[in-house]
């Protein structure tokens, strides 16, 4: 099975193996994890074929929002990414429209529960949790719901260390750890009720929010106050082959790899050089998946320099000013064709190159999930919004905006907030966290060549300062002690060589240089987190600088600090001329691979096979044709082409179509916006009648 057997950060749990069948073939899988992940474990990536054009279907959103992953479970069509595997399940691929099983025995129905709450928070990610904490500490009655099986939102998928400040947002800790910390703070609060596996599916004009609780029970909740903390969803791109199984978002990839510990790919190619793409690349390597390359359409990657450097050092080619020309393959991704673009974003002919890969991750940015907020405003709810739903930014910013909106709610309720932080102070901090850092500066190499001190390879003003708080000597400061300035070593007191700053740095950008034993060949200590095996004295590693490899050296010492259990501190002895320039180390690869382009994909391509609406299989050409005929009303376009009428309710295609309007020269303010209606996710009719999900189905 294609599961992840070892992982440098995540602990591999004991999982119960059970049997099931797919299209009659007996297979083994893990109980409790979702069907889609179990199919991937067995190398199955095509889950069915679309009724309109027989195109292969597979994983796309991996969070229950679309229906691409539909399979038949004991005869009943279900979303495989939301349905946990059970012993003996008979699973079939969904070929065309599924049949509605003839289950004609009368159903027992139960009364739908109606509930009133003071404050309903939708989303238990960083912003929702931080809001729940602030409100809950004041004793406000809260219902906090989340569609996942654990709190933390996207934090639970993040194995890397986070930026920000330690005291406010737990910087230096990994996302998975921050999720636990925030969750634990909320779980102890008496006035906070948490419903997991519970999705808000409708927000109605009569003040009720419809919630699908525990995946199968419908509850109507009437909140006095509503806080939207629903996070973000990924943007999609339009290119030929964009709906082939194997093309999906970085978020889905993280679910497969970091939540379900599935190895969904052998070779991935990443589209997008923002933090999400860069981090996905790092996660892939942690999971033992080869990253063939990463492209970014802009001349530089938009993500943090330190994230980019981590990938470059590991040998991932990063191509800037490149775009994806096509995803190629018959039934699934077999290769990617990329090409260079000029300053007008036009492909430069002759620059196309094709690389073999089995997965293409799209990481071209996020859109806020704000439709609940829009609807709630329209219907006169007492409503607030925080986190990525309010504005796309880092989790650290979300933690602040959650607190800010919570204080606003308290204020509206007339609760005494004099002991809370000043809103202006919090807003200032949130603004700093949201600010996109400036371009990196030159590395400022310290002149000193004696004693022991940290060297900061941190050249970008990211709002981050855990290094300043962990130094037991209090000698690390940022310029003017501002969180968004670069750190330096003050040197009023001696560095004791504890290594805490090296271990805590989320960018892995601090080394420790020690001239005391041998000034000509100082000891240099690096952080290392890509292996589980203990790095022994005497083993050989590769030392790298920003400009490339500096050669192989022997490890003279390796340790792990108890407070940073997954980060090795590895010491090597380097010649003085390179000691301060060396930024990182890496393991000597077991096999040397060079990534070479292959012949261009030659198979005949259907014209206009760029899909805009994947649910209804509408091409970009069709949408363009109607726009050129003068359609400016999105609702008319829906009626004409079916875009946005599919199971995902336009979540993916609406932003793409707005882009097409813009590209076609239609001013966006002349376009009539699409009317959004409940439900936000498909729900079985019986659920509204109070029918419990039948055992025969699950």
């Amino acid at each position: 099975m294609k599961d992840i057997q070892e992982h440098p950060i995540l602990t591999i749990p004991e999982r119960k193996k059970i049997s099931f069948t797919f299209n009659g073939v007996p297979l083994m899988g893990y109980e409790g994890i979702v069907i889609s992940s179990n199919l991937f474990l067995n190398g199955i990536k095509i889950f069915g074929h679309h009724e309109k054009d027989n195109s292969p279907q597979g994983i796309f959103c991996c969070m229950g929002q679309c229906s691409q992953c539909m399979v038949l479970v004991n005869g009943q069509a279900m979303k495989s990414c939301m349905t946990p595997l059970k012993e003996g399940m008979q699973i079939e691929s969904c070929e065309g429209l599924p049949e509605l099983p003839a289950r004609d025995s009368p159903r027992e129905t139960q009364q739908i529960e109606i509930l009133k709450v003071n404050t309903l928070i939708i989303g238990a990610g960083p912003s929702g949790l931080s809001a729940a904490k602030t409100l809950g500490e004041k004793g406000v009655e809260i219902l906090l719901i989340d569609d996942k099986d654990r709190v933390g939102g996207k934090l639970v998928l993040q194995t890397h260390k986070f930026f920000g400040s330690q005291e406010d947002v737990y910087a230096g800790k990994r996302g998975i750890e921050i999720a636990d910390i925030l969750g634990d703070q909320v779980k102890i609060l008496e006035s906070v009720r948490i419903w997991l596996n519970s999705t808000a599916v409708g927000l109605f004009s009569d003040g009720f929010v419809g919630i699908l609780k525990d995946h199968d029970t419908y509850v109507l909740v009437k909140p006095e106050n509503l806080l939207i903390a629903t996070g973000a969803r990924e943007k999609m791109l339009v290119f030929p082959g964009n709906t082939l199984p194997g093309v999906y978002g970085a978020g889905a990839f993280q679910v497969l790899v970091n939540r379900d510990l599935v190895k969904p790919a052998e070779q991935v190619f990443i589209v997008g050089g923002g933090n999400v793409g860069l981090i996905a690349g790092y996660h892939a390597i942690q999971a033992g998946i080869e990253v063939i390359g990463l492209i970014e359409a802009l001349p530089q990657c938009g993500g943090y320099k330190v994230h980019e450097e981590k990938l470059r050092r590991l040998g991932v080619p990063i191509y800037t000013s490149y775009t994806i020309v096509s995803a190629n393959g018959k039934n699934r991704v077999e290769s990617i064709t990329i090409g260079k673009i000029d300053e007008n974003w036009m492909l430069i002919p002759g620059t196309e190159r094709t690389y073999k890969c089995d997965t293409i991750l799209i990481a071209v940015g996020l859109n806020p999930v704000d439709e609940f907020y829009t609807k709630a405003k329209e219907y006169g709810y007492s409503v607030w919004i925080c986190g990525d739903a309010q504005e796309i930014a880092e989790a650290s910013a979300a933690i602040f905006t959650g607190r800010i909106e919570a204080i606003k709610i308290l204020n509206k309720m007339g609760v005494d907030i004099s002991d809370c932080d000043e809103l202006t102070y919090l807003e200032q901090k949130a603004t700093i966290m949201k600010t996109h850092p400036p371009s990196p500066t030159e590395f400022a190499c310290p002149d000193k060549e004696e004693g022991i001190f940290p060297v900061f390879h941190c050249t970008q003003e990211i709002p981050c300062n855990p290094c300043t708080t962990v130094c037991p000597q209090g000698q690390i400061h940022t310029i003017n002690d501002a969180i968004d300035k670069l750190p330096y070593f003050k040197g009023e007191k001696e560095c004791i060589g504890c290594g805490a700053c090296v271990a805590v740095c989320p960018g892995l950008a601090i080394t420790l240089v020690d001239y005391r034993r041998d000034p000509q060949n100082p000891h240099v200590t690096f952080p290392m987190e890509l292996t589980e095996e203990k790095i022994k004295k005497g083993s050989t590693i590769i030392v790298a600088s920003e400009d490339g490899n500096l050669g192989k050296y022997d490890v003279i010492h390796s340790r792990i600090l108890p407070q940073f259990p997954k980060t090795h501190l590895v010491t090597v002895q380097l010649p003085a001329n390179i000691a301060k320039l060396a930024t990182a180390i890496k393991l000597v690869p077991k096999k040397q691979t060079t990534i070479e382009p292959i012949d261009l994909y030659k198979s005949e391509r259907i014209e206009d096979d760029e899909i805009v609406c994947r649910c209804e299989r509408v091409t970009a050409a069709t949408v363009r044709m109607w726009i050129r005929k003068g359609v400016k009303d999105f609702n008319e376009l829906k009626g004409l082409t079916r875009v946005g009428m599919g199971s995902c309710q336009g979540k993916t295609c609406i932003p793409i179509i707005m882009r097409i309007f813009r590209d076609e020269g239609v001013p966006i303010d002349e376009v009539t916006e699409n009317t959004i209606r409940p439900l936000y996710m498909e729900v079985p009719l019986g659920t509204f009648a109070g029918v419990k999900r039948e055992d025969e189905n699950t």
Partner: protein
Amino acid sequence: MTFYDVIIVGAGSIGTPTAMALANAGVKTLVVDKLPSVAQGDNKHAIGGIRATHSQKSKILVCQRSLEIFSTWEELYGDDIWWVEGGYSFVARSVEHERLLRETVEIQKEYGLNISFLDAEQIQELIPGINPIGLHGGTYSPEDGNASPLYSVHAFYDNATRNGAEFKFKEQVKNILTKNRHVVGVRTDKADYQASFVINAAGGNGKEIAKMVDVNVPLEPESHEAGITEGVKYFLRPMVVDIQPGTDPTFGNSKNYYFYQNKFGKIIFCITPNPSVKGKDRTETSFFLPQIAKRMVDLMPRLSNIKVRRQWRGLYPMTPDGIPIVGTVKNIAGYINAVGMCGQGFMLGPGLGEVLCRLVEKKITSQDKEILKEFSLYRDFGSEEKLK
């Protein structure tokens, strides 16, 4: 100022096919609608049922012609409007309803309609998975059917514009211009247009438009909610109508509800609340799905597993007797009502459009005369249709 023969207020279920009929007859026609494109009022809220099997003669006559237009459209013009000749079936779940339906069928047969009363067993065959408990049979009219309101009206719109009809969107009619008790045009928020006829096809806003010429139409919009599911393999032919009243102390009582499976496998459903919900509010309520789901799952348990995708709410511009108000008025020449469709505008539209065209052209037939008499504003509104 631009000159037209006819100006139609409203580019919806009635206005659009009327413009098509007029344009095809060479009448210079303008349609004005305040919304941004065709069929954006309540046409798109219609669920798409089309039947001639009413129990009132004029509606039958008009809808028979509509059915002809819908069912031959693709053949004649090539557009797929999702027409399916699936029929209608009103099911009886009590002795009383069996009697009522049997009686109605007899009247409908007299009008020459293809309809019969089937016993419980035949209904079970017709409607796979229907709950046999308490089933007393039901009607079946195989020549009725369904089509996509949006696609149909868009096809009518294309045809109308190809034949010279003009449409102005995002333009609101502010006044109907008259001279010596004769219509001379309309004033919108953007311009004045001259015409000797103005047809009020403004749906839920019909009363307000009529007021512009001091005509009072007894019209009160009420709202019904509807929903649509995911697509599943085609298994259900007819539009199923359950006329058994529903009692629900939590989510509200209801009269009938109905559903059918469209050409692409989706089940579309709608309910009539009791008491009716007056007004023009089109926002979605939380009670609709629990209310109708219970009834549908009870009638057809297998529907428990189909996933609901979307819900919406649309207006039924109601008249006191459930019959449209169509035709000229006494005090203003050139003004024509085409309002009060009571939620049946989509199925009445194409047939009615032709009647209105003949009315404008002064070519009405004896049958048209009969229709216009029954649809007259000056009729006695006291009697109600047997089975609306």
